[in-house]
């Protein structure tokens, strides 16, 4: 597959500053190529091969907005603010539940053209975590820029709809989101992904969050309504003093997704929680990678990842807790539990603790196994079929992670998606 960068440049005239960034980063990508299993972080996910086998006609989208979406796809019976992205492009936003003057919302396309605001985010373009980030810098075209003023708490959750329609077929979509929470502000956010007609594309998205002092960000994400898509979602979080970042991931829809969450606990008493369900069947391949960096004293982090794998599916959880020398009194916790229900499915777990401080509390655990056959016998001896018994056991197993969701209306929404999925699954 050859990505035609020159053509992209011609149709996306940008200021010289951005243009230089694009050229530089595309060259970096060209040198490195897509990540493969030769790289430690991609050991269990050979993206190069996966893309070659499934999306070898991948191309950069034309500079033409394709903003059709079906409004019936919006969530009902659930009051929320909304931002709509179609194929990664910003389409519309609605903050009617909020004091709109406290919120600055712009399409990233606008920001990239506006020298003054672009300055605010230019530092993010120096990030060279991996070749996909470089590619995203080079090809980014649109996305979200959202800024919340100090002391403002959202009254209703915000849903970011990520719709993908037919025009995204065989395209590589490089959007970037910036969400900046001011001091003492509060936001609950649901990233809701949905595709049309099982389109096949590669979404290489970079999400940047900044959570200032005392601010609270609760972020939920579900790819349950994706089908045939390939995704790399990188989330970078900067947490300042006494802030809270809560993240829940329901990873179960797309053919392939690698979700990578990096959280820097930069100032004391900040905390970060990442909990996830990975629930796969057929030939799905999902990976979750978390990097929690304790860079200051008295910070807290925890992760609970529960996975259930059927058929020929494959999942990986790589969780790293890094504690800097000065990050004393760190409290870090990580637990991964997986049920591998088919002999053709596999789960890889790589917990890592890297600790340089000497007064910390850090622990991790990882278990992988099958359902206890005695449980099945007990339930069947009460009249349940094997299918029902498996179902109720898997539901109970995964529910532990869903119960960690502290936002009740989002919990019931995700719970409903989850039950639908369980009921559709053949055990």
């Amino acid at each position, binding site marked *: 597959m050859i990505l035609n960068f020159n053509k992209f440049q011609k149709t996306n005239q940008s200021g010289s500053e951005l243009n230089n960034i694009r050229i530089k980063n595309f060259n970096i990508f060209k040198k490195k190529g897509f990540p493969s299993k030769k790289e430690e972080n991609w050991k269990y996910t050979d993206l190069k091969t996966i893309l070659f086998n499934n999306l070898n006609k991948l191309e950069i989208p034309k500079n033409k907005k394709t903003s059709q979406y079906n409004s019936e796809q919006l969530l009902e019976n659930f009051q929320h603010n909304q931002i709509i992205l179609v194929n990664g492009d910003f389409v519309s936003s609605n903050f009617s539940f909020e004091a709109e003057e406290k919120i600055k919302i712009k399409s990233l396309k606008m920001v990239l053209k506006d020298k003054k605001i672009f300055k605010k985010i230019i530092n993010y373009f120096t990030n060279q975590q991996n070749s996909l980030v470089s590619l995203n810098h080079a090809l980014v075209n649109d996305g979200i820029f959202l800024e919340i003023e100090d002391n403002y708490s959202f009254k209703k959750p915000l849903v970011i709809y990520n719709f993908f329609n037919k025009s995204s077929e065989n395209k590589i979509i490089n959007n970037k989101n910036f969400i900046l929470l001011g001091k003492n502000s509060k936001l609950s956010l649901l990233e809701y992904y949905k595709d049309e007609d099982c389109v096949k594309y590669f979404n290489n998205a970079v999400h940047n969050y900044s959570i200032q002092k005392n601010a609270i960000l609760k972020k939920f994400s579900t790819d349950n309504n994706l089908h045939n898509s390939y995704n790399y979602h990188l989330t970078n979080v900067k947490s300042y003093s006494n802030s809270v970042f809560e993240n829940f991931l329901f990873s179960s829809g797309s053919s392939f997704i690698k979700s990578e969450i990096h959280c820097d606990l930069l100032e004391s008493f900040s905390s970060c929680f990442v909990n996830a369900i990975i629930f796969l069947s057929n030939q799905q391949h999902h990976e979750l990678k978390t990097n929690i960096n304790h860079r200051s004293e008295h910070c807290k982090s925890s992760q609970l990842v529960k996975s259930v794998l059927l058929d020929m599916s494959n999942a990986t959880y790589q969780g790293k807790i890094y504690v800097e020398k000065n990050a004393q009194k760190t409290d870090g916790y990580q637990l991964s539990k997986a049920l591998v229900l088919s002999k053709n499915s596999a789960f890889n777990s790589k917990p890592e603790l890297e600790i340089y401080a000497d007064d910390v509390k850090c622990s991790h655990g990882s278990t992988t196994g099958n359902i206890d056959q005695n449980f099945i016998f007990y*339930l069947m*001896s009460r*009249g349940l079929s094997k299918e029902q018994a498996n179902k109720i056991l898997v539901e109970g197993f995964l529910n532990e992670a869903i119960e960690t969701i502290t936002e009740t209306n989002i919990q019931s929404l995700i719970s409903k998606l989850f039950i639908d999925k369980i009921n559709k699954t053949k055990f």
Partner: protein
Amino acid sequence: MLDINNLSASVDGKKILAGFNLKIRPGEVHAIMGPNASGKSTLANILAGKSGYKIEGTAIYDGKNLLDLPVEERAQKGIFLAFQYPLEIPGVNTNNFLKISLNTIRKVKGLKELDSLDFLKLVKEKAKKLKINENMLSRELNVGFSGGEKKKNEILQMTILEPKLAILDETDSGLDIDAIKIVSDGVNSLRSKERSFLIITHYQRLLDYIKPDFVHVLVEGKIAKTGCGELALELEKVGYTEMEASK
């Protein structure tokens, strides 16, 4: 109701039941006593359908060989086993599980499924009789329950599911005197002309409360002696070894 004929069972080549015969008619309460490792729990497990045994012989129940039926079908047809060691099943809510269980069985019986309200009403009423704190039922199945609570939970399930043949595998072990009385009341309240019980126990004490029609002594995989309630009293006095010697 149940006619067990020449039942043999072995695990890894080791014979546990050998030529076991037993006939249970509707409404009868049979007690099976016997020393450790005489095959009592194996009998219970085999009737409920646990796998892992090499089985010969038949157990005719309602005109069909029970031993050929899948586990869930036995339960749906009215067989109930109160486990000797009820399992702790994390993540599975007790009420939710019981509701699925009851409705599955009702469906097979051709009865209307109960909605949540009716179900909770029923559970509440039954739990009260067994002096079970209903908060326990909104918790995970048996997780963190005491030994006695787990046993009572088995009896609660039995009173809700109303089986035709209930097999109680050492339900009295681990129960204090008050709990034995409560559990026995639960069993006695279910006694009827159509319902039979097979009660496996080590001790005669339980049979003071649940009066059996027959007492069988199981030794080395077959019934060594059968009698009425008095046999249990006699056993308590002389012990299994002496009784075996006098055989």
